[in-house]
């Protein structure tokens, strides 16, 4: 029998997804050119020297590619078998890190090993993804079961907490990406929706907390948020309690009441119409709680809880902003929401990065011709703000290509994850793509001034060995799992 026809003996290189590898190689190559542009020193223009950051990055890229191929050669069962072990070791390392690490800009997350520094947090994502995949792969595991859900949650929260203890909030937030995996695996959508709704309440509530609605004494923010809570509550009712008939009555009477209050305030006596809206929300929540008790249906209670939770979250957000957050964090939030113009302080980075990107124009200034990045106007331009260099030197077209490559990678990974035959493979695959998506979303959004400034690297672009190796590890383990998977199914 021909050896090639025996699927068990075919090399994983034959079945590995070469398209993903191509995307990976394209991205790290683009990344290296960006590092060249960003760390170009007018006094030391030799970009291939080992002393320069470009030279080092090239070496790390070489290591990464080697690492990738080594990972492909390992037996695919290894990852499943070692998952918990790796996870536990990682937890220990994370716990020890603050004691071994040196202070770099207030964070204790870097461990020095000889001449190179490593950031364990970058590798913790991979370990967590493996452990999560293994847990969810267990027979009978379902997220509808509270205990199972809690187990999955703990696996995510543990490393996250340890990383927060290292004062590396940015890296810790990345672990939120795992909730996208949980969503895919059956976590109720309302959880995700509640999370997003919370962000919306906060943003709108704070952003428009000063201007008042014409003719009333109500801040626009408060009014809009209360209205949203009312609409979201009815929306949830519609989704989760389809038999609830009075939906339209509630919607219409709510709007009529609000309009009446608005008219009364505008034409008769101005007053704070937020009380009316708040009243409607409370009445609705109370009514739902009553229905829940009367009909012994927990679903009504959930919706009521959503409504009450939203209200309390909104009214506490103001308190949190002013009393819990530190002044520099408050400033950051206000600047992000456009309430303060602070181009020398907290907004400086973002303003300079917008200038750098905006000056790129359609076609960019050309490789190594960027003035803003070369003259160091953008801080951390070769790590967190690396995308500025792409924007400035390659222009809109180059930036669009890079964004396209990332989108291509993520969509391809969704496709690969969906074709896995094991829950292990699928969960791990979704973990990988969710982490990439989160990084791209936050990092590029921050550079474009759309998301908060959270210091996390752009995969394959940002200068640094740890993050490049971390992302390579994540990706190639999945490619190996996929290759093995494909071999068994063929």
């Amino acid at each position, binding site marked *: 029998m021909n050896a090639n026809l025996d699927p068990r003996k075919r090399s994983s290189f034959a079945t590995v997804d070469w398209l993903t590898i191509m995307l990976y190689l394209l991205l790290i190559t683009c990344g290296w050119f960006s590092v060249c542009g960003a760390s170009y020193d*007018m006094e030391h223009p030799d970009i291939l020297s080992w002393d320069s950051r470009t030279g080092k990055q090239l070496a790390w890229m070489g290591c990464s590619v080697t690492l990738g191929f080594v990972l492909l050669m390992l037996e695919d069962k290894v990852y499943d078998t070692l998952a918990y072990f790796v996870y536990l070791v990682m937890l220990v390392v994370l716990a020890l890190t603050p004691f071994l690490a040196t202070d770099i800009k207030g964070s204790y997350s870097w461990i020095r090993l000889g001449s190179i520094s490593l950031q364990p947090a970058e590798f913790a994502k991979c370990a967590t993804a493996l452990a999560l995949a293994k847990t969810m792969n267990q027979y009978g595991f379902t997220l509808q079961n509270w205990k199972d859900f809690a187990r999955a949650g703990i696996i995510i929260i543990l490393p996250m907490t340890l990383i927060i203890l290292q004062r590396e909030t940015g890296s810790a937030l990345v672990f939120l990406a795992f909730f*996208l995996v949980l*969503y*895919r*695996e*059956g976590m109720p959508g309302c959880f995700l929706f509640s999370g997003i709704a919370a962000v919306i309440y906060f943003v709108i509530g704070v952003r428009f907390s000063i201007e008042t609605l014409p003719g009333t004494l109500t801040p626009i923010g408060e009014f809009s948020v209360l209205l949203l809570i009312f609409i979201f509550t009815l929306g949830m009712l519609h989704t989760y309690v389809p038999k609830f008939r009075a939906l339209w009555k509630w919607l219409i009477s709510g709007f009529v009441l609000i309009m009446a209050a608005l008219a009364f305030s505008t034409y008769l006596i101005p007053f704070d119409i937020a009380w009316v809206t708040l009243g409607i929300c409370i009445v609705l929540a109370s009514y739902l709680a009553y229905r829940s008790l009367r009909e012994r249906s927990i679903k009504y209670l959930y919706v009521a809880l959503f409504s009450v939770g939203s209200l309390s979250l909104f009214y506490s957000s103001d308190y949190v902003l002013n009393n819990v957050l530190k002044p520099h964090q408050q400033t950051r939030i206000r600047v992000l929401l456009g309430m303060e113009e602070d181009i020398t302080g907290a907004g400086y980075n973002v303003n*300079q990065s*917008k*200038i*750098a*990107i*905006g*000056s*790129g*124009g*359609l076609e960019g200034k050309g490789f190594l011709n960027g*003035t*803003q990045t*070369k*003259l*160091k*106007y953008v801080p951390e331009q070769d790590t967190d703000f690396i995308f500025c260099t792409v*924007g*400035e030197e390659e*222009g*809109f077209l180059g*930036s*669009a290509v890079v*964004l*396209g490559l*990332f*989108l291509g990678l*993520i*969509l391809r990974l*969704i496709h690969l*994850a*969906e074709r896995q*035959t*094991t*829950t292990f493979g*699928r969960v791990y695959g*979704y973990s990988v*793509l*969710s982490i990439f*998506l989160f990084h*791209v*979303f936050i990092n*590029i*959004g921050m550079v*474009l001034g*759309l998301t908060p400034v959270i210091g996390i690297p752009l995969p394959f672009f940002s200068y640094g060995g740890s993050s490049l190796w971390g992302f390579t590890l994540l990706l190639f383990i999945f490619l190996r799992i996929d290759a093995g998977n494909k071999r068994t199914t063929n």
Partner: protein
Amino acid sequence: MTRDTQFGNRKYVIGGAAIAIIIVYLIRLFSLQVMSDDYKKNADSNAFLKKIQYPSRGLIMDRKGKLLVYNEPAYNIMVIMNEQQGIDTLDFCRSMGITREFYIKRMAEIKDRKKNPGYSRYTPQLFLGQIPAEEFSVFREKLFRFKGFSVENRSIRHYAYGVGAHVLGDVGEVSPNDLENDEDDFYNSGDDIGKLGIERSYEKQLRGEKGMQILLRDVHGRIQGRYQDGAYDQAPVPGRNLTLGIDIDLQALAERMLEGKRGAIVAIEPGTGEILCMASSPTYDPRSMVGRERGKSHKRLTNEAGKPLLNRAIMGQYPPGSTFKPTQALLGLQEGIITPAVMFPCYHGFSYKGLHVGCHGHSTPIALVPALATSCNSYFCWNLYRMFSNRTKYTSVQEAMTRWKDYLVSMGYGYRLGIDLPGERRGMIPNADYYDKAYNKRWNGLTVISISIGQGEVTATPLQIANLAATIANRGYYYIPHVVREVQGAQIDTTYRRRHYTMVSPSNYNYVVAGMRQAVLNGTCRGANLPDIEVCGKTGTAENRGHDHSAFMGFAPMDHPRIAVAVYVEEGGFGAEFGVPLGALIIEQYLHGKLSPASEEKATKFQTRHIRYERES
């Protein structure tokens, strides 16, 4: 192992979210990079330091190519307010040689947006301008200590001769007014601009074009090199050099002879209209109007008696007196009021209907040529009276007056001639309207008879008088007098290259020339009779409340004239007293290139003969 189908649709939600994020970011990128230009400008102002390269100002030479005005290096001390903090003020003031009070005052002035409209805390502002090299050396050594202060290399005007201040003018720091009227957007606060004289009127030619060096500046403000190795730099274009019609030796002589007197001497080359010399007294040393001293000197000169800043040659409006008579002769001949043969009586003056205009002793009756030679008042009074009462030729006295005025305007009187110097005045030639208003329309030739002898309402600038001499020398035309003969690499304005013909035909000029020649040979101008030059001249003694002005107008040689001159000395008495000898010396100097020893002695005599002025003029 089964594929999870229960939540399979959620992959679309996740994929859709990824696509939505990328699309939003693409839109954002598009709006930042393609839709808006602001970021590009912002980036440029971030990274590019546009350093202005100042052109060197054009040089000024006299008609023989002698260098009159040139540039020497000087230094502007600039300050960036934002960076200037915590310097040792005492040390600074000592090195600069200024007082602490001056320092504080100057800083306040810089910040005052009314006085300094272009003020910015982040850009260099002029602290002190035009410091000469020798004063600067002390400061240069200490410059590194004074954070926020920097130096700009500039140049300062130097004058090779201490004469010609009124013509040459000077440069000074641009005023807020200049900045407002700056249509080409050429000047920045602290720049120099021509303030007076040809420095002002030829500012655009002299200043050249600024260059620009584009430097790359990093986030700390350090210069990191030139942008694209200077590919987009622009080299400054030096200003154009000017060659003047002025003969600097002649100018020096004229100023020398006017010392201690008030008045003006103007000489014109009739064939071109070029000004050969233009002296106005009292004058000042142009070298005092340079650099930091300019403001102080300017203030002092403004308050000084005799108003040295006034260029009397073009701003002084005097009664022309008898120098006006040739114009009367010319228009009388042209209008047919007189012929060379017509004689008028003169019994120590013009007496008619109870009006008497005095004259000095000479034979009577008298014809045109001797009348000019002896400067007979009566002759020209009759001439005007006959013209103004000629009802066959003119329907009214107003019409005659208008005709009279038109002749004079065609000879360059009554309006600005249009010399290439700022501040020229027009003089006064009255018209019919003027007298209609003054006399309620009840007037006749006798009422205004004094205008026939250059008195009364008639006034003219010395330049206009010199221009008359040039017109007669040319037998009927003139070029608009101009100081600048040649602009390097360009032609002078066409208005200065066009002949302006008067309303009098050339043949009639010959009689006037003959009269002026007779005046020199055996008339009032005998003092101008040079042995080897055929000078033509006309004296003027303008009545001025007991202190008559002394004037002279003439040209030489009679045929192919090369110089026309006007001399006007305030309160100098008879024309022969100052006007004639000064005019003769000017003619001799110019035509011979030097003065004879006897003339030299005469010039020195006049230099030391001062006139005491009681009234302010």
